[in-house]
């Protein structure tokens, strides 16, 4: 005799993009392959498709951001989703509401995907436990910024054809950088060798355990590198707290044409932006289209975010 099925709602396991650490190589490659297809779409005259029509995307930004937020905004719109952006400056969170309460409130509006940027490491993980839609991490504290790493990977693949076997240097404020962490995980996963270069005060404890070699000398760290990723260094860290001065930092860690010569001949430069010209990078070098991938990073960022939205959005 057939047993009648109990009327139990089965909660589907939702897939979130919380960090590269939680990603399998297959998932990473799926995102990159999907993103490649969107590059062409984004360059065409009609950029809008409707695969996310009827879906609601909420961008929840607790930290000011221009490029990441607009990139996610555009990505969602190009896929046909209804996109709502909340900046904390004018929300209830300023009035003392906790992250969980905000999550519950937003959850009640039935979003299909929430994109979150938060100053605290782990905030997207907490959010993902409380909502029943997918959560995409758009940067949390100093932990992860997975879509940035993915767009960096796509940019490299676009130019160099592959990542496997490349040597990549990440240079600057590694300690405070989520971009550095996500890139270390992803580039390692995709088969690159990663060097990190920073003054001692901006290098995290036990960074080698993440699978990198660490250097305090640009000459050694850049040696035979194919890609040089520069990181933004914040002004408030330059006045004696972490570093003696801007000019001393530029002298030893600023990327100049001369220092770039330590890297391999056809080395390319990347920067997640926003740049401090003349602090971490020579201004002409940053604009040199022969070596700088900065603009391409921004362009491909939209494609990568479209891919992520498509893949993670609640079915």
């Amino acid at each position, binding site marked *: 005799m057939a047993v009648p099925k109990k009327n139990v709602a089965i909660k589907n396991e939702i897939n979130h993009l919380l960090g590269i*650490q939680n990603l399998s190589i297959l998932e990473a490659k799926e995102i990159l392959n999907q993103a490649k297809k969107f590059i062409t779409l984004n360059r065409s005259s009609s950029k809008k498709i409707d695969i996310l029509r009827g879906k609601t995307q909420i961008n929840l930004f607790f930290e000011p951001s221009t490029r990441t937020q607009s990139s996610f905004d555009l990505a969602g719109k190009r896929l046909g989703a209804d996109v709502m952006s909340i900046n904390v400056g004018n929300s209830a969170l300023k009035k003392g509401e*906790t*992250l*969980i309460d905000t999550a519950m409130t937003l959850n009640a509006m039935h979003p299909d995907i929430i994109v979150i940027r*938060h100053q*605290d*490491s*782990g*905030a997207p*993980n*907490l959010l993902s436990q409380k909502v029943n839609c997918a959560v995409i991490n758009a940067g*949390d*504290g*100093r*932990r*992860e910024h997975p879509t940035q790493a993915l767009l960096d990977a796509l940019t490299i693949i676009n130019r160099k054809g592959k990542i496997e076997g490349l040597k990549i240097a990440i240079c600057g404020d590694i300690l405070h950088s*989520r971009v550095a*962490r996500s890139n270390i995980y992803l580039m390692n996963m995709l088969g690159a060798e990663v060097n990190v270069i920073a003054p001692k005060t901006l290098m*995290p*404890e*036990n*960074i080698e*355990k*993440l699978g990198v070699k660490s250097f305090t000398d640009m000459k050694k760290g850049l040696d035979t590198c194919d890609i040089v990723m520069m990181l933004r260094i914040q002004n408030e860290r330059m006045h004696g707290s972490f570093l003696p001065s801007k000019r001393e930092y530029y002298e030893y860690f600023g990327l100049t044409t001369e220092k770039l010569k330590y890297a391999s001949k056809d080395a390319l430069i990347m920067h997640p932006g926003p740049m401090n010209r003349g602090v971490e990078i020579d201004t002409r070098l940053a604009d040199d289209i022969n070596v700088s991938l900065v603009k391409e990073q921004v362009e491909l960022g939209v494609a990568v975010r479209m891919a992520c939205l498509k893949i993670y959005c609640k079915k």
Partner: protein
Amino acid sequence: MKKKAIINARIIDPSQNMDEIGGVIIDSKGKIEEIGKKINKNEISSSYEVIDAKKNILIPGIVDMKVFVGEPGYEYKENFRTLSQAALAGGVTSVVSMPNTKPVIDNVSMVDFIIRRGRDKAKINIYPCASLTREMKGEMMTEFGLLTAKGIVAFSDVKRTIQNTEIMTRIMNYASDLGVLIMQHAEDYELSKNGNINDGEIATRLGLEGISDVAEKIIVERDLTLLEKYPCRYHINQISSSKSLEVVKKNKGNGKSFSVGVSINNISLNENDIGEFKTFLKLSPPLRSEHDRVSLINGIKENLIDVIVSDHVPEDEESKRLPFAQAAQGAIGVETLLPLSLELYHNKSLPLNKIIEVLTINPAKILKIDKGSLKKGLSADICIFDLEKPWVVKADKLKSKSKNTAIENRKLQGKILMTFLNGELLYSQS
């Protein structure tokens, strides 16, 4: 009260080097009249109330040197009644209550209040600790003399450290004359600023700011240097790292007299247990590496660490369900202190005698209180436990008002069966 006889127990009382099968006679005033192997069924008069311990272990009631009660100001986290229930269910009969309440216990009238409340509402012995400095600001010392006269057993700023070396010097100097106990939390704020967990690989991976073990070591070293010149009764609340332990070892080796505590959490868990941002494991001092954990256990073995405390810090859900950096520190622990300590016996890290010693007579000696022992004439504060019984920790089954246990779902072995206070059976496992 009718005279009681507990028979057929394995009595472990490190204060009198006792580990034997026997019994305890409790007189009509709740004091120990007789104890040891000579007490057996045949010798008991029929007028006694007889309790058969069925070969389970009988120890002095546990003395927990670091417990936060919640009264006054944080009654929603814990109060004397709920704390007593939790403590008794854990075989704990005496606690030192921390002064970081609202308002802070830093003056005589607050001490009156806490003693009165404790007497009326608590079912266990409450030994209040007052703050070292007014409002725990680390600036002006409290009235050590007057407060001691009111019944304060120790002085501590709990989770706060006296940063100013000059003030610490004066505190130790003044205290050395009065003979009061100073309990320091060792943490250099400049080094631990914004820190959340142990500085190391896990902190780097989770993107959390780390607290270096140097932050602790530097204060331990400073205070022990001062102790040379101002020999007061000095106790370090909790150490968490092997580096601090080295300093302790060097100084105890030089014959300096002071005592050291460790939280049960720091010897049962390590930083890896934090997983992906488990805020219930956000503690102060933080959980450190496995190497540190093992070193601390060895420190107990070598008598470098004198006591294990629960560091019972009840926190409501709202203070914990937050991003890690914003979440409150601390975990409850008074109820699981003994069972979790017994894990160290079962995994052969520590002998049973040693565990009982650091939970009973050692803290009592440091505090100079007549507890932690079953010598004739003392109050019959007794805990009887089944050494082998397995059980699983479930927060909602714990008696504390707050449920922030760091060891949810942990499988433990060893369960408290009965707890007596002044000869009265106040807890019995149903």
